[in-house]
């Protein structure tokens, strides 16, 4: 996925000379995950900027760069450090168009690696999507495959409004597929049906998508049931149409996310299903989520992050209901 993101940034910078890249260690070091490796050499110091350690200024300056006519791609080194920019994202970036009644707008993409699974220290493994999904004016995108990373990031950069692009850390090196050559655009607000449902469906995003697929395999082996998997890809705007469609076919639903359960974005998905597809449900909707704790430290993270076993248990409970 790292290469897909890097190539997409390069393609957008080549396509549109208004696109600039800024963040901590994105230039000479090529980013701590090497996502931006080589971009400084290719596009130069007038378009790729190593910033001071100032998340609020990275996002806040992106607001100003937008007004000046540029198209910023801002990197927050780890999503857990986006809290230092939260007031700029929620209070400023997401609402300048609204506040200025359309006079100004912010075509800003804020990229941030997020989530656990690779034994990072405190504050490096937060799953941050919920508060940002609760930020009117901000689009929230989470790819789970390299192809989608390319297609969604292309859309994000070209979007006239701000997009938070959350990159699942454990998928950086492990997610692999055949990324389409050349122009590849995935429209924001479209979920992907990874596996067609018949008996139940798991709705997930980011690093939980492969976990959902593993659970679906296990259910097929154990029970011969066909469990669908939906990758939301975009949390805001939410693809209600696809969600309703799979729920109507499956009747049984499990929603999975890595962020803590309480107030998690899964609650929004569940509430939407209840409003839009209640009479298709054959069992109570189950949620499998992170525990209501700060992001777990390395020695316990495998026990605290949702895994296939927990999703299987939730699916079995749903299938038995």
């Amino acid at each position, binding site marked *: 996925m790292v290469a897909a993101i890097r190539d997409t940034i390069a393609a957008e910078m080549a396509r549109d000379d208004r696109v600039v890249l800024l963040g*901590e*260690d994105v*230039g*000479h*070091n*090529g980013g*701590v995950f090497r996502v931006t490796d080589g971009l400084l050499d290719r596009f130069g110091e007038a378009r790729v900027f*190593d910033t*001071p*350690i*100032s*998340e*609020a*200024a990275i996002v806040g300056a992106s607001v100003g760069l937008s007004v000046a006519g540029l198209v910023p791609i801002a990197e927050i080194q780890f999503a*857990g*450090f986006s*809290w*230092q920019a939260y007031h700029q994202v929620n209070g400023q970036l997401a609402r300048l168009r609204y506040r200025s009644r359309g006079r100004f707008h912010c075509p800003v993409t804020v990229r941030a690696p997020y989530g656990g699974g690779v*034994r*990072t*220290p*405190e*504050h*490096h493994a937060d799953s941050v999507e919920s508060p940002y999904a609760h930020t009117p004016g901000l689009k929230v995108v989470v790819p789970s495959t390299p192809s989608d990373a390319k297609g969604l990031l292309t859309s994000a950069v070209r979007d006239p409004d701000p997009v938070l692009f959350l990159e699942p850390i454990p998928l950086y090196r492990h997610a692999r597929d055949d990324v389409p050559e050349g122009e590849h655009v995935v429209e924001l607000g479209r979920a992907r049906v990874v596996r067609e449902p018949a008996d139940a469906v798991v709705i997930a995003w980011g690093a939980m998508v492969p976990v959902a697929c593993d659970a679906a395999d296990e259910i097929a082996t154990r029970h011969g049931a066909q469990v669908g998997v939906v990758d939301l890809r975009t949390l805001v705007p939410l693809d209600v149409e696809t969600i309703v469609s799979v729920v109507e076919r499956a009747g049984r639903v499990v929603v999975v996310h890595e962020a803590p*359960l*309480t107030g998690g974005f899964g609650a929004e998905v569940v509430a939407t299903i209840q409003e839009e597809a209640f009479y298709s449900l054959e069992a109570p909707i189950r949620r499998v989520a992170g*525990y*209501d*704790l*700060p992001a*777990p*430290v*390395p*020695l*316990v*993270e*495998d*026990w*605290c992050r949702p895994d296939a*076993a*927990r999703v299987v248990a939730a699916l079995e409970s749903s299938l038995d209901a």
Partner: protein
Amino acid sequence: MTEVRDAPGAPLPRADAVPTAALHRALMEDMLLARRASERLWNLQRQGRIATIPPLTGQEAAIVGVVRALDLAIDWLVPYYREQLGMAALGDEFLEQVVMYWRGHPDGGRVPDGVLCLPPQISLGSQVPHATGLAWGLKLRGEPGIACTFIGDGATSEGDFAEGLNLAGVQRVPLLVVVLNNGWAISTPTTRQTAAPTFTAKADAAGVPATRVDGNDVLAVLEAARAARAHVASGKGPMLLELITYRVAAHTNSDDPTRYIPEEELAAWKARDPIDQFRARLTGDGQWDDAEHGALVAAVEARLERIIDAAFAHAVDPVSAFDHRNADGDARLLRQRDELAARLTSEPVPEENGVSWRP
């Protein structure tokens, strides 16, 4: 803490109250231990037994000199994440906790009772307002002591640094801010971090007096930190101390500094190694010799192995991750904890990179 004790790891009293020879030996021991601990934890990380390590290599004098200038019975330490290995004066149990922290153990942030120090701060700059508040609280409650916080050159670009320092200045709180200027914030050199000529200039903006010192000269650091502490403790308000040193090792095990650090610059700073310099100075003054040095190195090795063994003797109970979120757990949290406890009895427990969570 009123007596000098010779046992390794025993806290020393206030630095200016002890005989010079004992203090010199303590400074050397602390620096040697920090150096060796950086190396040992680096190797343990490579073996998959430690999750992360930010080495202190080459910057030992800056931390050791400050810590030994404080009155550890009444002064609070508010560190970020690199200095802990240089805080051997806080005792072996503290260092054991530091090793647990980098192991990724849920109890790693539990600073031992009686040690006046907050857990490592990962979120850059966040610790400065905490230290301001701590110092403010000491002042409001009429308690002695100061708060001493550490921050890297890069983190001074965070808003929290400016906000915390500014508030400290306004309230004239007993706060010492130590800027560990090691030249690099991962790949960003100080010249790209700020256009300010020095980091003391940032204190000027807050109306806070500041001094710059050679952070590789442990005696210079000690003297400057003692003077700064005296100023701060006297009720005159906060001070900032900029210690100029160099990050001769990587930012952490995840970093590859060969991508960006100029070789000549690195070589020049390696030639100014703080331990080598201090050893040469003491030897030149007739206060130290090779035999004494060798004996201390051996003692430090043994002490460190005891600390590491103790840190790895702590089992990891995944259910303990549920402890301490709040004073009490709500019903939903307790249900989640019970679910995990049930899984632990029904699922096989894997080893964590070769480290069982069971002892």
